[in-house]
């Protein structure tokens, strides 16, 4: 089975469980291609679980995840890895590894026991280094980088994987404002090159600013989805997080921003 170059990713009637607890039940989703999708929602709503389900890390208890219309769990894992890259939340790297060594692991799905190295590998690594603006840091140890640089190195590893699809689980958590922008702008650039990207994001204004498509989740269900301008309303913020706020368009970019946020007193 071979997959076409522009692959779609979606799920039908997807049910995901942690042990006996059902996290997501009967969910349908389809990622718009060549766009950035942000999955938002309160803690424990199943955002990360959904992302892990879509990336075949979490096996479904019901329903099916479709990569290019084919059941992802029936496809060879390496074949999937050539089309779909995942940046999980916990990113533990081997000790003492350099930036370019980390990025090299992204080539793994393209290599085999016999063909452990090819010309195309070095080209992909050089491209990833350039795209993530890490060329000057390629021989640095990963441990010695700042949080934002390290996160860029991990994203560069996914870039080197040369997949049309990229899923990121909270790529900017634990990063300060400057580093967050660094990562979000890189994600935008990748999407402009035609990648289909989905990311779990906590910060609503960032989601509105950097995503083309918002998927809002609560208690394992998608309650609404669409372009940030269409779906982001004060009612939605109220429903998701139980806080009152007003929304105004950013004077420079036009994307919605939240002001006057206050907790609802019960």
């Amino acid at each position, binding site marked *: 089975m071979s997959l076409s170059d522009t692959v779609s990713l979606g799920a039908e009637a997807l049910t995901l469980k942690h042990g006996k607890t059902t996290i997501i039940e009967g969910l349908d989703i389809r990622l718009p291609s060549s766009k950035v999708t942000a999955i938002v929602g309160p803690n424990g709503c199943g955002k990360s679980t959904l992302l*892990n389900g879509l*990336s*075949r*890390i979490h096996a479904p208890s019901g329903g099916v995840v479709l990569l290019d219309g084919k059941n992802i769990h029936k496809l*060879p*894992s*390496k*074949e*999937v*890895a*050539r089309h*779909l*890259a*995942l940046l*999980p939340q*916990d*990113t*533990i*790297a*081997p*000790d*003492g*590894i350099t930036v*370019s*060594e980390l990025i*090299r*692991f*992204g080539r*793994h*799905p393209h*290599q085999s*026991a*016999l*063909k*452990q*190295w*090819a*010309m195309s590998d*070095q080209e992909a*690594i050089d491209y990833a280094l350039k795209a993530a603006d890490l060329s000057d840091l390629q*021989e640095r*140890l990963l441990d010695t980088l700042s949080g934002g640089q390290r996160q860029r190195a991990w994203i560069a590893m996914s870039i080197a*994987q040369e997949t049309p699809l990229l899923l990121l689980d909270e790529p900017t958590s634990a990063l300060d404002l400057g580093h967050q922008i660094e990562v979000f702008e890189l994600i935008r650039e990748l999407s402009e090159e035609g990648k289909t990207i989905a990311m779990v994001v906590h910060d609503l204004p960032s989601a509105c600013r950097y995503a083309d498509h918002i998927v809002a989740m609560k208690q394992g269900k998608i309650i609404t989805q669409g372009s940030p301008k269409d779906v982001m309303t004060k009612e939605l913020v109220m429903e998701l997080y139980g806080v009152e706020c007003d929304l105004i368009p950013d004077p420079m970019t036009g994307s919605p921003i939240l002001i006057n946020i206050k907790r609802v007193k019960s």
Partner: protein
Amino acid sequence: MMNSLPTTSAESTQTKVPQGYVSLTLGQFTCLLDHGAIRRNLLLLGLVILASIASLAIGTVALSPWQVIQALFGYGDALSQFVVQDLRLQRLLAGIYTGAAFSLAGCLMQTLARNRLATPGIIGIDNAAMAFAVSSVVSTAISIAPSAMALAGAATATALAFGLAGSSGTRGYRFIVAGIGIGAIAGAITQLMLSQVDIDTANAAYPWTVGSLSARPELMVNILGGGLFFCLIACLLLTHLFSLLPFSDAVITGLGSSTKWLRLSSLSLSIILTGLAVAVAGPVGLVALIGPEMARVFARYRGIPLIGSALAGAFIMVVADLIGRTLLSPIELPVGIVTSVVGGPYLIWILMRQRSKSTI
């Protein structure tokens, strides 16, 4: 495919491979080799050769290094040929094989468990293999039995530790704690068996309980040699996959590899190596702790030092046995006691250090 010969032009290799690496192409096979790793492994190999010559030369009959080399290749006088080939070579091979096997098994398991303490010796595999081997010595006289039984013991202990560790699998302290318990029980069972049999049988089983290279059965040494060769080839072919082991499960799956298969293969190799080595020398498990560490000291990270660990383990074992033979000569200290004396304090040092810096 067009260019199947190793590239000789410096310019073209520079553009093709990452800094500090060379690519090796043999027909369809292409891999990357790290300059530093080649240098380190050659250095370790040199140390093993030096230690081996010393081990063959030193003893009741002292020989010069030149006599040893001559005798090895069938030249020189009859006495030195007899001493080297008939008296000392077998013991040297037993030392090299067991050291390499224990250390390689240790490196695999440490990487798998992502914990420097998780060597087969610590998690009870050595002791269980010993208990099974001793039980076969006590009950039967079949010469191949200790090897087979030690393997069975190693597999049993691992399966038990794995089962008791529950959902945390090979990662996390439950696996290690469960293993320590299993090791203690296996040790007690061995003692119980030895206390129940007559003194001659107990004597026959004694070398397995302390770790000794003295007069080991040739058949078991050869079985270990074959097993070690097989495992080294497997490791070389799988290094590419094993290098993913330090990553989280999500990353491994995301890169298209199976975490189950990775664990199963590295654990199996570790069990085979430990079981066969225990069948020869008994539980000299601390080599599994010191060997990989010595291989790491030589280098910062460039993959997992599998070959380096095997070489370092062989070196440590040969030197430890040499010390055991000569230190209190004519009394011979079992090699297991020498490695314990050196390894014990080292283990304590790791435990103290773990507080500040965890995992590998």
